[in-house]
């Protein structure tokens, strides 16, 4: 059975447009111009226990709003959410005992005092026993190398260090579901890798269900088998990464460099219209093709055999390009 069930959920906000300038500010005092914003519109999906799901979308697409509804911070305007057997906003007390949340932009640790003090208070808040507490810390230390950080005030930690501590804090009470809102934002490559390894292990060994939002698609490629794409409040795609690649026109391209400058007669390669050839300059040529129709190995073989080439490079469409395409089109184009 699904651990998280989201059905036809919408969230509408009322915001007030402000006029600019001092005079505008005075006018704002007396007249407010309400405007309704649909941050999330009719979104439905389910997540099974043990899954690791990536939730992506451009800035303002509705990712954070969805996460906030899933964690019980916001009440949906319509539709229903059930997670871990609870209605998040209604059963907040029981529900929050079973979930962990990390907002990459924010910390839940006490800013001015040592990290371990925050852990100790969280231990009380969630009624974690001494034994479980020690055990969890050992596990975290093994992957996140936490021990050297424990006695430093949070404000003195680097962003990467702080994020490691925040992750540990969110997992301290052994939640069944963990929500991560941009956990790798602003981190360097090493710190990112560190955090990915941790999430992988937690997911595999402790069967924690993970829902994460990110702008870094390599997070998704490394961690999640399943992605949800949201744009302007609408859910555009729900499926596997391979499915995403397949569903969109996956144009690949080969750029090859000739040994000697000259005009190439592409007709002799014999690919007709399935490959689009173009001479970029005297030395370099480009071939754009669809992987589903033409095997790249065939194409490369043909080029290398028929022409005198020095160098061949193959560019696949990355997930990033697909997503960029989706964002700019704002809709899913069936393949």
């Amino acid at each position, binding site marked *: 059975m699904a651990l998280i069930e989201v059905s036809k959920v919408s969230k509408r*906000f009322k915001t*007030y447009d402000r006029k600019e300038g001092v005079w505008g500010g005075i006018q704002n005092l007396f007249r407010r111009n309400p405007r309704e914003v649909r941050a999330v519109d009719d979104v439905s999906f389910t997540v099974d226990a043990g899954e690791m799901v990536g939730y992506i979308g451009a*800035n*303002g697409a509705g990712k*954070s709003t969805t996460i*906030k509804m899933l*964690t*019980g*911070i*916001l*009440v949906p305007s319509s539709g229903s959410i059930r997670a871990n057997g609870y209605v998040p*906003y209604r059963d*907040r*007390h*029981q529900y*929050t*005992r079973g*979930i962990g*949340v990390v*907002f990459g*932009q*924010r910390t*839940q640790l*006490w800013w*001015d*005092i040592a990290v371990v*003090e925050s852990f*100790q*208070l969280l231990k*009380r*808040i*969630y*009624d974690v026993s001494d034994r479980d507490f020690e055990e969890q810390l050992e596990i975290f230390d093994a992957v996140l190398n936490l021990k050297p950080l424990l006695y430093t*005030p949070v404000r003195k930690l680097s962003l990467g260090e702080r994020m490691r501590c925040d992750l540990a804090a969110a997992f301290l009470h052994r939640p069944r579901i963990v929500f991560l*809102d941009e956990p790798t934002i602003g981190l360097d490559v090493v710190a990112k890798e560190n955090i990915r390894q941790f999430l992988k292990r937690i997911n595999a060994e402790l069967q924690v269900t993970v829902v994460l939002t990110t702008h870094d698609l390599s997070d998704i490629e490394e961690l999640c088998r399943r992605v949800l794409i949201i744009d302007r409040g609408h859910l555009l795609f729900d499926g596997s990464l391979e499915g995403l690649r397949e569903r969109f026109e996956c144009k690949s391209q080969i750029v090859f460099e000739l040994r000697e400058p000259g005009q190439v007669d592409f007709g002799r390669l014999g690919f007709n219209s399935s490959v689009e050839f173009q001479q970029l300059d005297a030395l370099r040529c480009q071939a754009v093709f669809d992987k589903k129709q033409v095997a790249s190995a065939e194409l490369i073989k043909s080029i290398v055999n028929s022409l005198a080439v020095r160098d061949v490079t193959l560019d696949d469409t990355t997930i990033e390009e697909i997503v960029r395409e989706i964002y700019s089109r704002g809709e899913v184009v069936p393949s």
Partner: protein
Amino acid sequence: MRHLSILGYYFAQYIKVRLAYPGDFLISVFTSLAGTVASFGFLYILFHRVSSLQGWAFEELLFIYGFNLVCLGLFNVLSMNLYEFGERYIMEGRFDQIMLRPLHSLFQVIFEAFRIESFQEFATGLVVVVYVWHKLDLPLTPLDLVLFLLRPLHSLFQVIFEAFRIESFQEFATGLVVVVYVWHKLDLPLTPLDLVLFLLMTACGVTIYLSVFVMLSTLSFWFEDRVGVSPPVYNMIAFGRYPVTIYNVFIQFLLSWIIPFAFASFYPTTYFLQRHEFSSFFALVPLVAATFVLLALLLWSRGVRGYQSTGS
């Protein structure tokens, strides 16, 4: 009850935070003390010129003032975050974190920060009350008075200056117990009922203050602007330090039934001062406190449901 056991840990946590910046802490204790001294100084100078204020003697006013300070001190200790709720929690989005923990949201907001230095006001108020109580009934020898004044102050100083440890509050409490004991021993007219009533009235006073400011804080859930209602209302607390009868009818009504600060300071004291013309108001104190705390909680939970969070 689980909340109650966690309260201590929240308090300890905040002490640690404050201790991270000891200079800042000492300065705020000092300014807080200076404020209290100044307000008593005003009362003293006032009665240097006039012998009574519309039939209220200096000692009686001192008593009201002292009782007010007992409630206000406790309220000030607890109200730090309420006062800055809109700014710290709603506009900076910290309320998100509050919603993610399995504790009542109001509990977390109130107990994430304490204005520790205001324990000073609480203690000073208590000293004044004890002093007047004594003074109105029995003549005190100067030695007695020094004893009375020193004991709570001594433990107070331990709390504030020496250790900042929660354990010191036990000493503070012990000091109070000793004062009450000596008071009893010297055969001052203090029945156990009086004591119970005094504690009850203190609790009611703090509850009324907290409820009013919780209600004001909830406005932040609906208005994203910085709403500056709290400071003027806070200043109105000062009105409650005097007998309401010295004000005109409009202010009397306001302090009794709209923003019931008179129920948090003046009316409770009338019983102990044996001003029985106010006894019906005195009886209403717990009811007013209960009504306002219910209203505040109701408004709070409505606010939480309408919480909009910030971007990202």
